[in-house]
């Protein structure tokens, strides 16, 4: 094999490993009941694949191969373990599984194992940052170094965060189980919010040069798709997936060639991805048909109105204002109120929204929330109140780290002073 084709084969193997990582890991955790051990032996199996597959070819069932190899690595490790006697029961189970290998490795039980693992990774007993990292690592198959890069923290910090989370899972007895009905709503909410956080980190990119980091968006959508398949009876899971697809349809239109941010009203709608819009709208429709609307479905409905409007001015802002009202009834937060005010400013004119924005400013809950000041500044600008707008743009700039967005805001501030 030439070095170039070897490199290609290796890249292909890494692709397969990443695609299968979440499934195989979930299955191993189900058998070993130990996340750290499962991760170690799966890593060993991937290393083995990198050695064997370029020589022997990729097996017909790469998932089954990885699972069986990882299981044998687990047997080896447990045998070497100082606590060999204590691990006898686990070893017996593993040997039995190894004998029957190939049968249960491909069937539906893996789906259930993955659902359990999602609930473990998103358990509210873990810190939010740890939930996000753990979900990307264990279910998304991202390397620690990739997660660190995406969240702009040193790799050592991310590695420590993951290690601590895994230690807590073990020490505190966080279960590998689908939660009981009385905990279900809280726990599903936590899973949905972790996936949406991952998406938003990619979409909004609060810091760094490029305004979007597509990798995280793609990963969140992949996780959202897995979840929606695992819990088809939960319309909020489908609602979240629809919301992410609809947002993602605008991703490439959100910045220009220089990386400057383009606001929704100024985006070139021809660059919106019609395939994603159609897919999102279809998903949303079937979710809403289940007759149990929730925050993600409502937000997806708002996003769908934007996505299907021929132009910014031809957007049905009245409908959007109504939907924000519904969302506020479910989630009475200042951020939702801010969004409702912005929608109203387009439905009835910038003046109409200024009293609500002034009240939000007085209440102070959004004082350090950059999008509040950005929206306030923009509404004041549209209402022709240059002096107040300039002040609001300065407040916005003081809170803006993203380089592309800073350039945009500085331009607007200049217009107000000119």
């Amino acid at each position, binding site marked *: 094999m030439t070095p170039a084709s070897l490199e290609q084969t290796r890249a292909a193997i890494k692709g397969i490993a990443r695609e299968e990582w979440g499934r195989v890991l979930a299955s191993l955790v189900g058998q070993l009941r130990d996340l750290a051990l499962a991760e170690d032996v799966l890593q060993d199996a991937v290393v083995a694949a990198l050695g064997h597959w370029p020589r022997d070819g990729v097996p017909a069932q790469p998932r089954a191969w990885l699972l069986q190899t990882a299981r044998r690595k687990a047997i080896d490790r447990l045998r070497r373990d100082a*606590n060999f006697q204590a691990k006898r029961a686990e070893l017996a189970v593993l040997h039995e599984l190894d004998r029957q290998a190939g049968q249960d490795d491909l069937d539906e039980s893996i789906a259930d194992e993955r659902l359990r693992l999602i609930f473990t990774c998103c358990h509210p007993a873990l810190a939010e940052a740890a939930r996000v990292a753990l979900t990307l690592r264990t279910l998304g198959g991202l390397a620690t170094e990739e997660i660190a890069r995406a969240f702009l923290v040193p790799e050592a910090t991310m590695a420590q965060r993951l290690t601590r989370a895994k230690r807590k899972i073990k*020490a*505190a*007895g966080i*279960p590998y*189980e689908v939660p*009981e009905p009385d*905990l279900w709503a809280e726990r599903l909410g936590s899973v949905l919010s972790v996936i949406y956080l991952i998406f938003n980190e990619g979409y909004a990119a609060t810091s760094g040069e490029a305004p979007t980091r597509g990798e995280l968006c793609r990963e969140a959508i992949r996780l959202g798709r897995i979840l929606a398949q695992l819990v088809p009876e939960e319309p909020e899971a489908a609602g979240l997936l629809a919301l992410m697809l609809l947002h993602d349809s605008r991703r490439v239109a959100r910045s220009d060639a220089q990386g400057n941010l383009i606001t929704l009203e100024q985006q070139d709608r021809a660059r919106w991805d019609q395939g994603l819009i159609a897919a999102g709208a279809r998903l949303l429709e079937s979710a809403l048909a289940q007759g149990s609307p929730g925050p993600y479905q409502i937000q997806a409905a708002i996003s769908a109105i934007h996505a299907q409007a021929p132009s910014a001015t031809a957007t049905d802002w009245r409908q959007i204002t109504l939907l924000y009202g519904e969302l506020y009834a479910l989630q009475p937060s200042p951020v939702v109120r801010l969004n409702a005010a912005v929608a109203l400013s387009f439905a009835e004119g910038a003046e109409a929204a200024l009293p609500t924005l002034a009240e939000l400013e007085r209440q102070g809950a959004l004082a350090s929330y950059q999008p509040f000041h950005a929206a306030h500044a923009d509404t004041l600008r549209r209402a022709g109140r240059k002096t107040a707008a300039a002040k609001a743009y300065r407040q916005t700039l003081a809170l803006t780290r993203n380089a592309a967005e800073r350039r945009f805001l500085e331009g607007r501030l200049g217009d107000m002073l000119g």
Partner: protein
Amino acid sequence: MKYMCLIYGDEAKHPQPGTPEMGQLMQDYMAFTKDIQEKSVMVAGDPLQPVATATTVRVRGGKTDTTDGPFAETKEQLGGYYILECKDLDEAIAYAARIPTAASGSIEVRPIMVFD
């Protein structure tokens, strides 16, 4: 696994002895305790005297230093505990949520360390 549920509440807002609120709270605790005893979940559990009765002891350089009061002044004070035998954290959380003080104070759930 064994979990310790540390029961924290604001002593200043605690119902006074002899009031109907205190009677209700006692009944709720008795009912909860009876239930977890019958299910063999309870390993131990006791209420504590108020923090006014607390004494903190430190030994520094071989010298014992005894002071009045709790280890730390906090808004909510440790008022009692249960030790529960549960299969996992979710089961412990479900029981902790049923401790009557959970509705007004907070319950800290800590796994008890096992040496193996």
